[in-house]
């Protein structure tokens, strides 16, 4: 396969209504719940492959939410209740009340399930140590640094090691909190590096989104980060106009910064806004991709993806957005003579 401009999902898809109903129904047995999760996971793999993506997973069908699912399975964490994210949207926050520990690989079953069924390449998204530390209340450790590094070495690293032993070749560490506190960038990088320490033969990406500082906080610390890919949100900041001029592709300014670091790392280019129903046309995707190729230079360093997980959109809209993403990449490849 030509490795230029590979298309990938970032993580979550909205759960089918029947899955939510089965999970909420008090009368459902655990077997029924598990069967419903498996059905949804399989359906998601098929949906992503049908949309034409090169790299797929299960749309995180088994995970209630990226933070809660992980925190619930970590020793030392206890849930405290919900806090507001915005308006009437809330999330459950855990308290770290003791030393954190690994209770078993909470992603292994889903990975094995996808590996046995997917025809395309697989990427496993996992929630990173820094984000878990940042989104939890720390009642047990003297500093956030100690908590994040303990999560990295005692929980995330064994989890990654087990996934790699089971055959995972591409792991995406989700760190949406990475640039929230610019002065903590050293900790973000240290906890990432501790997570992947001495684990070889696998590609590591980091996904960061909705950075209030246009990713500027990342550098120079990120130069030490042992990742192969940055999967980033851009489309949310961009105009909907067609064109490849700098003044049109306003959302992609930060690409200059990544390109100037000469790290030779891949960019996972967010070309689909996950917060609006409006579907990006293939031509708009094409122009965003070609603009990025212009800036980055080497199309093999670019993967193309939505800004973030598409769970915020209906499954129909998510499918349309992903299908157009693939069509737009085909148009770009045609223009670049990559087909």
């Amino acid at each position, binding site marked *: 396969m030509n490795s230029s401009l590979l298309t990938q999902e970032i993580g979550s898809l909205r759960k089918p209504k029947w899955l939510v109903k089965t999970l909420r129904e008090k009368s459902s047995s655990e077997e029924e719940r598990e069967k419903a999760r498996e059905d949804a996971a399989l359906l998601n793999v098929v949906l992503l492959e049908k949309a034409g993506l090169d790299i797929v997973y299960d749309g995180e069908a088994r995970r209630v939410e990226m933070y809660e699912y992980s925190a619930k399975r970590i020793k030392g964490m206890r849930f405290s209740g*919900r*806090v507001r994210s915005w308006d009437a949207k809330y999330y459950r926050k855990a308290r770290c009340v003791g030393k954190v520990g690994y209770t078993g690989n909470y992603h292994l079953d889903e990975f094995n399930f996808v590996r046995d069924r997917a025809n395309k390449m697989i990427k496993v998204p996992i929630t990173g140590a820094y984000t878990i530390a940042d989104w939890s209340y720390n*009642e047990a450790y003297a500093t956030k640094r100690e908590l994040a590094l303990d999560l990295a070495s005692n929980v995330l690293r064994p989890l990654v090691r087990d996934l790699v032993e089971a055959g995972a070749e591409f792991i995406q560490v989700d760190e949406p909190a990475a640039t929230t506190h610019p002065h903590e960038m050293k900790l973000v990088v240290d906890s990432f590096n501790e997570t992947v320490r001495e684990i070889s033969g696998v590609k590591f990406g980091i996904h960061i989104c909705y950075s209030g500082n246009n990713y500027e906080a990342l550098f120079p610390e990120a130069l030490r980060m042992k990742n192969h890919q940055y999967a980033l949100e851009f489309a949310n900041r961009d105009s909907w106009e067609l064109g490849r001029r700098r003044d049109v592709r306003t959302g992609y300014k930060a690409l200059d910064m990544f390109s100037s670091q000469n790290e030779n790392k891949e960019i996972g280019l967010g070309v689909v806004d996950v917060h609006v129903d409006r579907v990006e046309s293939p031509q708009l995707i094409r122009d965003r991709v070609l603009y990025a190729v212009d800036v980055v230079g080497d199309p093999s360093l670019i993967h193309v993806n939505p800004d973030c997980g598409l769970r915020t959109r209906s499954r129909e809209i998510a499918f349309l957005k992903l299908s157009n993403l693939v069509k737009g990449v085909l148009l770009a490849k045609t223009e670049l003579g990559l087909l």
Partner: protein
Amino acid sequence: MAKGWISGIYPRSERLIEATRRQDPKLSRLFEEEKRKIIRQEFDAGLDFMTDPLIDWDDILRPFTENLGGVEIGALDRFYENNTFYRRPLVLSEVKSRGHILSSAISNTLFPKKKAWKVDLLDPYSMADLSENRYYRSKEELMFAYSKVLAKELRGLPSNLALVQFNAPSLARTKDKDTISQAKEAIRMATRGIEATKCLHLYFGNISSTLPQFLDFGVDILGIDFINSDLQSFQGTTFTKALACGCVDAQNTRIERPSEIVAFVTRVVNVLNPKSISVIPNTDLEFIPQPFARKKVQAIGKAITKLGDEGI
């Protein structure tokens, strides 16, 4: 004698969270019931100023974003360094108010009779900093436009208002002398003719290097966020105002023991020697679930009683 109060938005209960999620038609009644309960807890804890818990505000700017002339609801944006988001006020033309926004958004009739009450606002600079300005020539110009609006809004409140608290996270984070100097004038404009005690609470930053400028503001009380700043960095400062000591961590569920609060406040008094001291959370309690917020309110109440016993 040491006083105590809470600030800003209080967390919603699980019952209210569910009601807001399903857009319960009885929501306004549920909000009022819960406000009564929370105000009762403030009273029972022995806090000195009753405050509306603002549980019906979707963010600290929302009543203004929704009701000011010239402003529309903009995109979601991160609220400083929190995993909490707000809708940016999108300023498209001259900012205008008839002076009824705050009086409609505050449930001051729920406060116990004869008990002093306070109101919380963002300061004009933080409001401008959090807005998307597409009309005024500069952020400063927008800040002064907000000052005028806030002056009108404050005059629209009942005259028995005892304390106006300006919460100023953006000001706490700036080191720019000209900005702070202009913000001082903006607060003077906003509070002109207001009889109530005025407090400027500077949170989400360490203000030790800019404190001398803030001591010159026309407010009676300065609030300092001691969760995000080290007390030692204030060593040697001559503090000439009353101090609201933000030493109760509103962003962590660990509950402070009253004796712990008392010990810290005693150290603060030794370092800064303020005219008087009050105990407050470092920021809004909405960052922790309600059961923990309630325990923090009780801890503040117990701490101020102990401080009183010790003559502080």
